[in-house]
């Protein structure tokens, strides 16, 4: 069975500093990996995905994620955080069709 872990429920970072939101996965086979963001009272918005190819994936709003097969990780990163990046972030993995989500990480960017 596939699973996703987001080890941090909450991440706080100062505006202008780099941010990292962690994600690890467990699957049989080659994973498709995704990051989504959820703002209050809104649905999930797609940020980026890894299918194959370059391990560094660039996505929306200046976010990027690095796929590390040996560490089974797919951490989300941004070089300089904005207050408007404050939201709930979900990592997800898809194998054989079904998308499995992590429990989410609340990112707070402090002005």
């Amino acid at each position, binding site marked *: 069975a596939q699973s*996703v872990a987001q080890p941090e429920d909450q991440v706080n970072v100062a505006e202008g500093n780099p941010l990292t939101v962690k994600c690890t996965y467990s699957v049989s086979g080659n994973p498709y990996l*995704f990051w*989504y963001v959820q703002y209050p*009272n*809104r*649905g*999930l*918005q*797609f940020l980026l*995905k890894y299918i194959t190819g370059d391990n560094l994936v660039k996505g929306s709003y200046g976010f990027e994620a690095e796929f590390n097969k040996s560490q089974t990780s797919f951490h989300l990163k941004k070089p300089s955080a904005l207050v408007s990046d404050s939201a709930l972030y*979900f990592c*997800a993995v898809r194998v054989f*069709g*079904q*998308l499995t*989500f*992590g*429990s*989410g990480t609340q990112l707070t960017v402090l002005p």
Partner: protein
Amino acid sequence: EAGVAQSPRYKIIEKRQSVAFWCNPISGHATLYWYQQILGQGPKLLIQFQNNGVVDDSQLPKDRFSAERLKGVDSTLKIQPAKLEDSAVYLCASSLVSADTQYFGPGTRLTVL
């Protein structure tokens, strides 16, 4: 391009009542999904449609939940009768094909009293 539409946005009912949610996917998207998101958790897939056929409903509580997508476009999700533990946000998503990126609607927040 219009996104995934859902209605209503909020619904409050008492336990044992019935409720229905509606979803209109992105135009041309063959695959439609319903997810349940309980507070503090990630979304959990309830059912997946490919056009008007069910692909996966293994996590749908079939004794009380039902869903249909009769013409392969809009979909409805029904709960009858509702329980307190059904309080959650119900998210609809669609994708061009099943292997493609899923795009989500704003969700319906259900409160069961």
